[in-house]
């Protein structure tokens, strides 16, 4: 009770005094206090015989710099408690920052190293996040209220869902294009505020003519497309319903990028007519910058679906249910549930498709919807999974970087221990010390983050250009990336100083002052060793991942496609808009094959109607005396109409007989070359050579098999062998006109792309454009997910390895310098050089080997989860693991050699005398 009273009493007194002082003013209270003091001191001195003036002077002398102390005292008294607290805190921050800046300046190499390490670690994350964000997390740019917009997708049974094959529970597939009629069926519904259709493929449209012509990616979209997405034009307007009709004068909306690139951003571009192949289009609007519709690839031209569709594809694109070319979008009414909208769309679709459903085609078909955000939709592209994995990997890289920095700071902490001890004896509080360590970490992290943004800017541009050329990125480093970078910088800055912080907190002045430089606390040394070990383990994980992806890429690259794409140039004259008739086109191809074939440095030139990985077709095929042919899962047999040089140009391997030759002309007996699979499929156990085939509408006359080829892939790196055959282009099978030129160059490293284009334009100046590109361009996109994985994984793996190596080097160099005395002692006691060298190297190897074992165990248990992303390589591939382990151990030896060498040169005398 009394205690309570006294406490209340104290509080009351303090409050009273506070009030009094507030009334009096803090400075007057201080005046009173100090005046009293001076008086007392002076009168005391007067008693010793000094004069009044002398006594006052002495009193002032004893007080010290009065102005200074008054300032100090005023500062102590100023403000409320809370404000004082904040001020002190800010002051501590300020002085903390100053002191960390000072300590960083003292070791600029260390600071630069740390900032660079952060920059690489954070930069890797920012770069990958930029990609993941665009591929996966962000809604398409410029779409308003994107969460209301859904893709409408057809879900059907896999494999065509023929009723006759039914019965078993079959796999469902989602996606695929629909016809214009399918789209129009859905317009009767009420659950969507608006529906729009757009062409699934990007078409290439020629703008301009001849050498200055450009091929531009174009999309055909219905007039409702703009409303459904809620996008606003940058300049001009978008087209309306009355402009999206077959046969009307064409209008076009161009991209901001095309507007800038080709029209110099001139607003007068509106109303300008542009030449797109066969007919002129008038530009009426420009999309906002970075708008790519709802897909990732850049689009330069937006054309009305019905106007341009009828022109490009013919009437079949607008009517009928056989021409599949559109994808559908819908904006939901705000109060509508997705399931309800799907149900209605399914009902409408099934009504429209009633006839084919009744024939047993796609009996279980329904419409499902999906978000515009790729991560939430079905049919994620392979790159997406790899990008997600890379996000994880870049986080690991940052982890390695933080560990390394923690290690460096710990080492520095030991080196500056004496200084810290002195400062603590001088009265600096632990809290203050901790704040300084934290601030220094944050300062370094933020500096690193700033550099990381630069890395993300340049590195991101590089990665996008080389690895994801098909994806348009609206801005190099987006706001979300900057936010993430800032967050990571803070987090990493703090994470890296946690261990040094613990060390600092353990200090107390006497221990610290007592500790001599030679004696490193055991726990510090151990935590640094553990950090080094973890770094090694993480490096193993990253390098193993890199190895697995590189091996997958190698395996996928080395798949025998049956033809050799290296050294092959593909040329495709654009006929639309040239005014050439069929005969002229045929003559052009003839001339082109002859001219190009005679060029120096070109081994062979050929023309063909179809091209592997680009186009293929199948026509009716019969065998005399057989009513039906056996079928393969991939369909077919597929027909290729080719000229004589085709087999050489593609480097196809003839097994028996002969290929198509120049004597196989119109009027000569029709001939065909079949591939091995087709020979075995159609004439099992018989000789295919000399057999008779009835090709297309030529049912009366035999096309004789004159050769058998090794199988070649038709359109996919991973396809099953398919039945394919080759006929002579000159023998004119129906609708098999030439559309590709294939040129094999002698030197695969220097493809004659410009030369081929020049020769073709010289042959026929009326051609608006000639596409010329390496054959690899058709195949590489299928390898992209591995290329992406292999490149970035390797980059990150090497980064982690370098960081870990520098960490190991720093650890050993530090240990050697700190244990110079011990080494000197050993040297003095007669330990030979090899012994000393081994001592240091063994420590390095022991640490690394433990890390390797841990990392390998981790890979062993977790790599099988990657199996889906790898190709033809075991996730526990022993070769990869061995190479990684050896790499790490070799790196450890290289990294520890300089410190080991330094250990040898420790002079026993100096070392012993030093203490």
């Amino acid at each position, binding site marked *: 009770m009394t205690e309570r009273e006294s406490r209340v009493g104290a509080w009351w007194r303090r409050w009273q005094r506070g009030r009094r002082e507030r009334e009096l003013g803090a400075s007057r209270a201080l005046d009173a206090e100090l005046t009293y003091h001076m008086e007392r001191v002076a009168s005391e001195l007067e008693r010793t015989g000094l004069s009044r003036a002398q006594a006052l002077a002495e009193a002032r002398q004893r007080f010290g710099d009065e102005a200074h102390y008054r300032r100090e*005292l005023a500062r102590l008294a100023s403000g409320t408690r809370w404000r004082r607290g904040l001020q002190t805190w800010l002051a501590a921050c300020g002085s903390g920052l100053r002191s960390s800046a000072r300590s960083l300046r003292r070791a600029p190499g260390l600071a630069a190293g740390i900032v660079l390490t952060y920059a690489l670690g954070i930069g890797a994350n920012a770069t990958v996040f930029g990609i993941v964000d665009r591929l996966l997390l962000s809604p398409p740019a410029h779409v308003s209220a994107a969460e209301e917009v859904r893709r409408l997708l057809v879900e059907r049974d896999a494999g065509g869902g023929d009723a006759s094959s039914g019965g078993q529970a079959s796999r469902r597939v989602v996606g695929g294009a629909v016809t214009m009629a399918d789209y129009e069926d859905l317009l009767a519904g009420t659950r969507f505020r608006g529906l729009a259709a757009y062409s699934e493929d990007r078409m290439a449209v020629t703008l301009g003519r001849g050498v200055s012509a450009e091929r531009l990616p174009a999309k055909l979209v219905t007039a409702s497309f703009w409303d459904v997405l809620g996008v606003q034009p940058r300049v001009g307007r978008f087209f309306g319903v009355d402009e999206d009709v077959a046969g009307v004068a064409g209008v076009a909306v161009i991209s901001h990028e095309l507007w800038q690139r080709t029209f110099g951003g001139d607003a007068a571009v509106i109303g300008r007519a542009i030449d797109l192949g066969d007919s002129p289009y008038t530009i009426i609007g420009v999309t906002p910058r970075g708008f790519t519709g709802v897909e990732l690839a850049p689009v330069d031209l937006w054309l009305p679906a019905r106007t341009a569709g009828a022109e490009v594809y013919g009437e079949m694109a607008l009517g009928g249910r056989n021409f599949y070319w559109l994808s559908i979008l819908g904006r939901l009414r705000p109060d509508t549930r997705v399931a309800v909208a799907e149900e209605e769309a399914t009902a409408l679709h099934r009504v429209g498709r009633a006839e084919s459903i009744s024939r047993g085609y796609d009996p279980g078909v329904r419409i499902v919807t999906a978000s515009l955000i790729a991560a939430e939709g079905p049919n994620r592209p392979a790159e997406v999974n790899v990008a997600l994995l890379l996000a994880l990997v870049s986080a690991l890289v940052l982890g390695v970087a933080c560990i390394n920095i923690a290690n460096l700071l710990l080492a520095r902490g030991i080196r500056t221990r004496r200084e810290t001890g002195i400062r603590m004896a001088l009265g600096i509080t632990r809290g203050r010390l901790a704040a300084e360590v934290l601030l220094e970490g944050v300062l370094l992290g933020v500096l690193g983050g700033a550099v990381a943004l630069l890395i993300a800017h340049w590195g991101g541009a590089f990665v996008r250009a080389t690895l994801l050329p098909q994806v348009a990125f609206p801005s190099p480093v987006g706001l979300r990336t900057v936010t993430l970078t800032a967050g990571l910088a803070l987090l990493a800055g703090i994470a890296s100083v946690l261990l040094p912080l613990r060390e600092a907190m353990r200090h107390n002045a006497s221990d610290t002052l007592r500790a001599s430089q030679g004696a490193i606390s055991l726990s510090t040394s151990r935590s640094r060793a553990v950090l080094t070990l973890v770094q090694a383990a993480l490096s193993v994980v990253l390098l193993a991942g890199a190895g697995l992806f590189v091996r997958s890429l190698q395996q996928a690259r080395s798949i025998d496609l049956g033809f050799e794409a290296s050294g092959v140039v593909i040329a495709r004259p654009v006929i639309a808009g040239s005014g050439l008739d069929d005969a002229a086109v045929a003559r052009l191809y003839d001339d082109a094959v002859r001219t190009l074939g005679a060029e120096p440095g070109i081994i062979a030139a050929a023309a063909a109607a179809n091209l592997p990985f680009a186009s293929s077709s199948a026509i009716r095929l019969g065998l005399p005396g057989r009513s039906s042919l056996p079928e393969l899962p991939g369909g077919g047999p597929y027909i290729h109409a080719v000229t004589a040089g085709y087999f050489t140009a593609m480097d196809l391997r003839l097994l028996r007989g002969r290929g198509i030759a120049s004597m196989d002309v119109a009027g000569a007996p029709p001939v065909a070359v079949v591939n091995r699979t087709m020979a075995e499929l159609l004439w099992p156990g018989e000789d295919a050579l000399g057999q008779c085939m009835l090709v297309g509408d030529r049912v009366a006359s035999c096309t004789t098999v004159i050769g058998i080829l090794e199988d070649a892939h038709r359109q996919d790196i991973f396809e099953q062998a398919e039945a394919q055959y080759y006929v002579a282009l000159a023998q004119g099978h129906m609708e098999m006109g030439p559309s590709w030129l294939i040129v094999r160059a002698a030197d695969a490293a220097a493809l004659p792309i410009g030369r081929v284009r020049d020769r073709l334009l010289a042959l026929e100046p009326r051609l608006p454009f000639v596409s010329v590109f390496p054959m690899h361009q058709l195949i590489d996109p299928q390898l992209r997910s591995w290329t992406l994985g292999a490149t970035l994984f390797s980059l990150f793996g090497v980064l982690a390895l370098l960081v870990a190596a520098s960490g190991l080097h720093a650890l050993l160099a530090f240990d050697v310098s700190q244990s110079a005395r011990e080494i000197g002692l050993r040297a003095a006691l007669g330990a030979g050089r090899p012994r000393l060298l081994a001592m240091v190297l063994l420590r390095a190897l022991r640490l690394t080997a433990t890390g390797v074992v841990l990392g390998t165990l981790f890979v062993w248990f977790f790599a099988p989860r990657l199996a889906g992303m790898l190709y033809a390589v075991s996730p526990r591939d022993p070769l990869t693991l061995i190479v990684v382990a050896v790499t790490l151990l070799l790196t450890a030896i290289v990294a520890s050699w300089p410190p080991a060498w330094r250990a040898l040169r420790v002079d026993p005398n100096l070392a012993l005398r030093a203490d």
Partner: protein
Amino acid sequence: MRRKTELTLLQGTLDLLVLKALEVGAQHGYGVARWVRERTSGAIEIEDGALYTSLHRLERRGWVDSEWGVSENNRRAKYYELTRSGRRRLAAEVTAWTRYAEAVFSVVGSNEAAS
């Protein structure tokens, strides 16, 4: 004539001395200054300004409480007094300081013995 400073004082130590000066009971600043000077026999010179700064600082930390009162010569003076947490602090500081001093002495003392 100003005497030469014989020992410079560390901040933490000054606070300790001030706390110790208040251990026996409430004192005004002048009293604290005199007490310190007498106890150290002038071996440690402390500027009075530093002493007041220390008093105010300790007050802000809640280790010392102050009150205006009437002094022995009948003038108004500000009296300082240890709070409960101030007493605890004093005890802790004394222990830490003793250990520190012993540690330093064990080093310094042995060196003297060796030379």
